[in-house]
C-alpha cells in the first residue's frame, strides 16, 4: 500500500483527500444526524404514511385508504370545536405567560433581601414534573375535599362546594392557569437572562436625558428584550400546543370532548377509539397548525432582523 502511493498520479491523492475532507464533518455530525433521522424523522414519515393506511385495532396494516382517514377526521363533529379550543388555549396561555413573566423577570432582576431564595422558589415548578403539578392542582380543585373549595367556603365567596373540573368552562380556565403556572419559570428566566444582557450604561444615558421610569421601560428595556421575548414565545407556542399531561391528568378531555385539545383528541382517537389512521391524520393536521402558527408569528415579528 505504502509503496503504491508514491507511484500514483498526483491528482488521485488530492481527490481522495478532497473526499476525505468532505467526510470529516460527518465524523463530528454523524451521531447527531443518525439519532435525529432514526428517532425523529422516521416517526414523522411513519405518521404521514399511517395517515393514509387502513389499520386494524390490533395494529395490523390492512391496506391503503387514500384520503379516507382525513375525510373521517373532518366528519368528526368534535373536530372544529377542538381545533378552535386549541387555538384559544395556545393564544391565551402564551399571552398571559409572556405578560406575567415580564413582571416576574423584572422582579427577579431587582435587588432585595432574599432574592436568591425567591429565584429558587420560581424554579420549583420548572423542575417538577408537569404531570405531578397537574395532579396536585386536580386534588386542590377536588369537589369534596379540595383546598380551593375549603378556602373559598371559609371566605364566603361560595356557599357550597363547586365541582370545578366537572364544568367544561371552569375546567378550561383552571387548566389554562396550570399551564401558565408551569410555563412561567422558564419564560421568566429567559426574560431575566435578557435583562442581564442589557448594559447598564444604556440606563445611565436614559437617566442623564431625564427619562422617567415609564419611558425608560417602554423606550429602552422592552425593545432590547425583543430577542428574548421572541425566543421565549416561540418555545412557549410549541410547548403549549403540544401540552398533554395537564389536560390528561385533570379532565382527560372530558366530559365527552368538551375540554379536549388536538393532542388529547389525537391520543383518544388512537388508543381509545382504535382509529389509528384517523389519529395519524389528526397528528398531521396538528403539525401543520403548529408550523403555520410559528411561521405567522415569525413573519409578524420579522425575526430575521432581530435574532441572527
Amino acid at each position, binding site marked *: 500500500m505504502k509503496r503504491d502511493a508514491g507511484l500514483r498520479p498526483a491528482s488521485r491523492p488530492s481527490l481522495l483527500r478532497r473526499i476525505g475532507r468532505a467526510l470529516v464533518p460527518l465524523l463530528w455530525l454523524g451521531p447527531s444526524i443518525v*439519532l435525529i433521522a432514526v428517532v425523529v424523522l422516521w*416517526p414523522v414519515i411513519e405518521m404521514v404514511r399511517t395517515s393514509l393506511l387502513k389499520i386494524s385495532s390490533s395494529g395490523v396494516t390492512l391496506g391503503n385508504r387514500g384520503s379516507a382517514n382525513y375525510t373521517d377526521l373532518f366528519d368528526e363533529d368534535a373536530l372544529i370545536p377542538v381545533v378552535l379550543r386549541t387555538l384559544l388555549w395556545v393564544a391565551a396561555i402564551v399571552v398571559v405567560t409572556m405578560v406575567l413573566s415580564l413582571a416576574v423577570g423584572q422582579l427577579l432582576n431587582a435587588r432585595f433581601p432574599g432574592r436568591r431564595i425567591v429565584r429558587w422558589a420560581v424554579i420549583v415548578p420548572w423542575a417538577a414534573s408537569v404531570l405531578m403539578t397537574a395532579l396536585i392542582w386536580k386534588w386542590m380543585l377536588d369537589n369534596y375535599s379540595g383546598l380551593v373549595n375549603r378556602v373559598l367556603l371559609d371566605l364566603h365567596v361560595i356557599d357550597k362546594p363547586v365541582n370545578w373540573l366537572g364544568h367544561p368552562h371552569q375546567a378550561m380556565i383552571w387548566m389554562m392557569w396550570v399551564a401558565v403556572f408551569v410555563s412561567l419559570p422558564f419564560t421568566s428566566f429567559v426574560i431575566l437572562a435578557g435583562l442581564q444582557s442589557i448594559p447598564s450604561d444604556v440606563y445611565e444615558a436614559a437617566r442623564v436625558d431625564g427619562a422617567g421610569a415609564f419611558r425608560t421601560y417602554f423606550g429602552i428595556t422592552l425593545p432590547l428584550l425583543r430577542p428574548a421575548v421572541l425566543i421565549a414565545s416561540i418555545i412557549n407556542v410549541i410547548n403549549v400546543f*403540544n401540552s398533554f399531561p395537564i389536560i390528561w391528568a385533570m379532565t382527560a378531555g372530558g366530559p365527552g370532548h368538551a375540554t379536549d385539545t388536538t393532542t388529547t383528541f389525537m391520543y383518544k382517537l388512537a388508543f381509545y377509539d382504535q382509529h389509528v389512521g384517523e389519529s395519524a391524520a389528526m397528528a398531521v393536521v396538528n403539525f401543520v397548525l403548529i408550523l403555520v402558527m410559528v411561521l405567522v408569528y415569525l413573519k409578524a415579528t420579522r425575526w430575521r432582523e432581530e435574532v441572527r
Partner: protein
Amino acid sequence: MKRSPVRKIVLTGVGWLVALIFVAPYLQMFLTSLKTEHELTKSPGTYLPGHWQWSNFVDVWKAAPIWTNMRVSLVVAAVATVVTLACAMPAAYYTARNRFRGRGAFLLLVLVTQMFAPTALVIGIFREMVALNLTDTLLALILVNAAFNLPFCIWILHGYFSSIPKELEEAAFLDGAGRIGALFRVTLPISTPGVITAVVYTFISAWNEYIVALTVTASPNRQPLTVAIPSFVTQYQAHWQYLFATSLIAIVPVVILFVFIERYLIGGLTAGSVK
C-alpha cells in the same frame, strides 16, 4: 434608579409573595402526603393534617414497586443524557468552529427538529417501536429522550462554543497543547455553564417525560415514576397520600439539582437564546 427604603420593602414583600405562590402547590402536596387516607375523604378538606402520618413515607415503598419505577426513571434519564451530550458536543463544537458545505443545512435540521415534540409524534413513535420490536423496553425510552433533547443541547452548546474566541484555543495549540488538548484544557472549561445547562435540562426533561413512556411501556417494572404515579388514584382506589408522597420523592432531588445550577442557568440561557 431610586433606592428608597419604601421601594425595597415593597419589592421584598412582592418577592416573597411570588415565591409563596410558586411553592404553594408543592406545600399542599407535602401536607396531603402526611394525612391519613380517612382524613382525605372528609368534606370540606382540612388545612393541616389532623394526625401527622409520617409513616406514609415508609408505607408507600410497600404499597407499590416505586423503587423499581425510580430505577427506571434514573436509568432512562442518565443514559439519555449521556447519549445526548455525546452526540451534541462534537456537532456543536464543529459547527461553531468550522465553515463547511452542509453546515447551514445541518443547523436548519436542528432547528426544525426542535419544533417536533414527542407528543405530536407519539403515534409515529409507537408504530416505529412496534416495527423495531422495541415496545416495552428502556432502550426505546432512552432513544426518544436522547433524540428530542438533542436540538436544544446543540443549540445551547453551539452558542457557547461560538462565543469563545478562536484565538484563545489557538494560543493553547501553539503552546503545544495539541488540538484535543486545547479543546479539553481551554474550550471545555470555559463552556462549563453551557454544558451543565445542557446536562441538567436533558436529565430533567427525561426524568419528567410522560406521554411516550405511557404509550410505549406496558409492564409495571419498565414504567418510570411519571407513569406509575397516577395509578395510585383510579376508579377503584384513591391513595392520594401515597401519590403525593411518591411525587415528592421524585420532585425533591430534581429541585435540588436545579437550584445548584441556577447561577449557570442564566448564563446558559443568554448564550443559547439571545445569540
